[in-house]
């Protein structure tokens, strides 16, 4: 399977909660109660929203959004790591229990 999916990623350090992305791309981005973006699902961008996604990326005042390509078979969520020392292990950490 050499197909790739394109996902949105937030750099949480750069993001300062302007909320522009959620206005431009409400189909994929909502804001939490503190004004920071929450991505729908794993952040996969469907083709029909690609133009809006690129717009959200270029219009982010903090330049905190980006697109990444991942093999379609890999399902690990890029943003969550158990620790800095295990950069290659995908998947949700122990916090998943609380997160439901």
């Amino acid at each position, binding site marked *: 399977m050499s197909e790739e999916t394109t996902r949105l990623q937030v750099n949480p350090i750069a993001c300062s909660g302007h909320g522009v992305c959620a206005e431009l791309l409400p189909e994929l981005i909502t804001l939490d109660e503190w004004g*920071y973006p929450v991505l729908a699902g794993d952040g996969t961008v469907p083709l029909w929203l690609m133009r809006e996604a690129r717009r959200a990326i270029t219009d982010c005042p903090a330049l905190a959004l980006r697109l990444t390509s991942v093999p379609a078979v890999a399902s690990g969520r890029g943003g969550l790591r158990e620790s*800095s020392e295990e*950069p290659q292990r995908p998947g949700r950490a*122990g916090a998943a229990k*609380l997160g439901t």
Partner: protein
Amino acid sequence: MSMLAARVFDQTRSQDGQPVSRRPIPAGESGLPRLLPPAAQLAAADPRRSLDFTAHLARHGLPRFRGAALIEQAGSAGLTGRGGAAFPVAIKLAAVAGAGRSAIVVGNAAEGEPASSKDAALLWFSPHLVLDGLQAAAEAVGARTAYLCLHAAGRQSGPDLAAHMRAALASRSAAGTGRTGVELVEAPPRFLAGEETALVAMINGGAARPRDKTRRVSERGVEGRPTLVQNVETLADLALIARHGAAWFRSVGTADEPGSMLCTVRDPGGRVRIVETALGTPLHRLVWLGDDVQALLVGGYHGGWLAASSARQLSLSNADLRPAGAMIGAGVLVALPAAYCGLAETARVARSLALESAGQCGPCFNGLPAIAAALAAIAEPRPARQELANLMRWAGLVAGRGACHHPDGTLRFVASALDVFAGEIAEHSRSRCTAMRSDQFLPLQAAALAESDWR
């Protein structure tokens, strides 16, 4: 580096001028304790005696494996990082060695976890094993520069570990090994300062805050070079694997989690011990878990609580602990006496963890204080009904949304408390608390925190 290492290990002479021979290890000898002096000696030991490099070589002998052969041995040994994440060491070594550029090695003793003191103990009692490991790792990945990051004592005064390590380096220098290339650095006494991207940022001249991990430090770290960051206990293990090989390392521990590790054990009386033990050892053999103990905290403040009844059934292995909601982490074990309120203890630590947010990621610096405040309310009698629901909602919002593992580690700790102390939550809702004592049992960060403390 290889020239240097050759001088270190080959030209050293014992006091009578004879070459120090490799200490033979009889088949099957596990050699526990491996890293620290035997417990009886440790109790009365003067750490200054550990500085003698010749005595160190007399006890441990000389290394057999270097460079690529050492990486291979570390892989066969199944050595994993002892700083908390248990990542396979050989994979990191190979990644940095294979980066094709001159690399940097960082030994990590920035032990920011208030409940842990095993890294400091290791440096006090076996400084040369750590420095051997630092050199062996530097040689294996092709590094000319090595850093050793210590945890700054903050405003507390006490024995000076940095001076101790300087003396250890001087002792190697006097023995003809040279101290070339090892630079001592003190990390600020913050919980997250020992996170590898934070250490790299600090060495690069910035604040010791975690950074975005889209670029791994193994590709681009200190000075933009491929950088290997390893906990000092991991380095000491590597120094012994270089001497005795993978089979020896595996002669203790379990097949999946081989070897031994250092644990910081706080017994219900509040006494702290450093215990060196094989992985897979039953927890009840490491820490008192009698009827006067209600719960065991495993893995520190990013780890999890276990009810004493389940802790009695489990061993020191992630295979046992992970399904129970805990993890070995950096080997912190705290037995909470029945006289204390587990919710109040957890709430105080959660508040300090919220204050330890680096303040960079919105969900973390907004969510953790909210979660800590809700937990503090739950720890009081008759909390408002919505506190627990709020906490759960915020936890869902924070999970997975930090650049580092701080929010998720904190959530794991809080979640385990809600689980293990569920009975106490029910008591509190009826305006009762079973605790006899209200003083604080779990250790907290001593000094007040200020923005400047990140440097």
